[in-house]
């Protein structure tokens, strides 16, 4: 526009000045990004190709560590457990978050603003404190759940046995993150133009119909975002089992989740190379699952448009 009237030489030095400025703004971030993210990532991949020998340092073993991991029942059980966690906990958590968001967005809840805050507040509690707190709530020493069951004459349920611990952890994670997901969905709902609802209402659509046909499709990308974040989060489960180990060591063990397994391998067994392979493989699983989910929702969208 204004630059068009300037001599060409002036314009190109202008251009170069802008490129330099852009890279100057970008450079600090990129430096830290490389040092703290890219280098460790490649270092992890590098480490995973070696094995520590009893005598004489480390030896290059190619993909042996990966082969070992893929036939290691403790790793596979951990991944399976996280997959079960994903299939059960994530739909429950996101389904409830969506229901809460729709209910609050409909404006038919009295005191909705305070309800929204109440549901969101667990997100402010550090995961460590959340787990310690629920550990006490579940516990038989002075946990209110046990107190309640004993008061009505039933035996206290053992919520920290090897059969129940996965469900107990699901409850902890759900409690902590429903509000976060709800706020993402709620904010997206608030951005849908009001006129759409009015048109639907004139056509005689009820609240449920509006929610199903306008609101939920309208916040598709927000829902997808919560799904992806939840997938990444559940596979990385660490602090909950690590902390509950102290009060229920037998139910958790040392390989409850792949992350806990990698931690124990690295810092208890000193098998850093194998731990790096596990961590790398876990990251790979997460990327594949996130990618498949994204792909399948995209296809569904195209199918729906037809």
């Amino acid at each position, binding site marked *: 526009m204004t630059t068009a009237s300037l001599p060409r030489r002036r314009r190109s030095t202008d251009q170069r000045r802008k490129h330099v400025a852009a890279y100057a703004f970008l450079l600090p971030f990129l430096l830290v990004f490389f040092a703290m993210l890219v280098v460790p990532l490649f270092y*992890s991949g590098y*480490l995973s190709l070696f094995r520590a020998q009893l005598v004489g340092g480390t030896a290059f073993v190619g993909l042996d560590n990966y082969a070992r991991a893929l036939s290691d029942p403790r790793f596979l059980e951990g991944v399976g457990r996280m997959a079960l966690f994903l299939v059960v906990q994530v739909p429950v958590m996101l389904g409830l978050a969506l229901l809460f968001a729709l209910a609050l967005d409909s404006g*038919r809840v009295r005191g909705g603003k305070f309800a929204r805050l109440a*549901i969101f*507040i667990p997100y402010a*509690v550090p995961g460590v404190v959340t787990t*310690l707190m629920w550990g006490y709530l579940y516990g038989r020493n002075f946990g209110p759940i046990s107190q309640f069951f004993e008061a009505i004459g039933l035996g206290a349920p053992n919520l920290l046995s090897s059969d129940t611990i996965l469900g107990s952890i699901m409850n902890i994670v759900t409690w902590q993150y429903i509000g976060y997901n709800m706020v993402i969905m709620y904010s997206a709902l608030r951005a849908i133009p009001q006129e759409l609802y009015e048109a639907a209402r004139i056509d005689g659509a009820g609240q449920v119909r509006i929610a199903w046909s306008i609101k939920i499709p309208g916040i598709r*990308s927000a829902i997808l975002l919560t799904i992806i974040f939840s997938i990444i989060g559940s596979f990385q489960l660490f602090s909950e089992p*690590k902390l509950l180990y102290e009060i229920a060591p037998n139910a958790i063990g040392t390989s409850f989740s792949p992350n806990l397994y990698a931690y124990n391998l690295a810092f208890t067994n000193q098998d850093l190379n194998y731990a790096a392979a596990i*961590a790398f493989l876990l990251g790979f699983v997460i990327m594949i699952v996130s990618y498949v989910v994204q792909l399948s929702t995209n296809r569904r969208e195209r199918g729906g448009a037809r």
Partner: protein
Amino acid sequence: MTAVAERKVVRGATRPSRRREGMAPGERGSTVLTVLIWLCAAYFVLPLVWLAIASTKDNTGLFTSFGFWFAGDFKLFDNLATLFSTRNGVFGLWGLNTILYSVCSGVGAALLSTAAGYAFAKYDFPGKRLWFAVVLGAIMIPTTALAIPTYLLFANAGLTNTVWAIILPSLVSPFGVYLMRVFAEESIPDSLIEAARIDGAGEFRIFAQISMRLLGPGIVTVLLFALVETWNNYFLPLIMLSDPGLFPLTVGLAQLQAASEAGGGASAQFSTVITGSMVSIVPLVIAFLYLQRYWQSGLSTGSVKE
């Protein structure tokens, strides 16, 4: 460009008055929905109520009284005194460490993300698309997969067991860059930058004196996200630090809990752990309630603009 800016302003001005919490004309609150939502909200609040009440009891009180009501003696101040005096008052030190780590990481991550996001939003430069794709892809990388290699790199550099081991890895926030790009695209009109250039302002002066000001709310949002992430981080400090004097609250509390569990039911430390948990969440809960509009704007920008 001005037309777009104008539309944004109009939209921003009308949005709050568009509807009263989504209430359509002639519709009223639904009692069934209200009761249901408030029952659910109770599930989110009650554990925290239990924690608050439990922090007023000593160990005997915990075992002999009902969880959701006070014991005969009000021991909160005794518990606080014990908490801050055990092991020469190390708990206070943990609190200060947490504040130090979170503030440094939060401010650093916000500045790096702001500059990078601004470059992506407001400049065309060679490699822009590639770099942005790399940053977006990095959001998917599970951070815990990086923790072990990062630990090894820091160990080689002799940086484990220092504050840098916590702060440096927390400075990278790819999601922050993404958010700041969206914020910058929305809130800084190109015409304004162009006008400043014509007036002879340099690129850095424009950034520091004009753009940073317009980006204020966005910077606060990214700062809060990074701050809370560091405040809640457990895995990284757990593996990086071995000196209890450097622990943040999360690792310190976990260690206190492990010690109290190892001591068995007879140990006098349950009340200390519970009071410590209570004390460590109070600042965050207050900050959340006070700054909630930033949360909402951050989460909605992230999801709507996906």
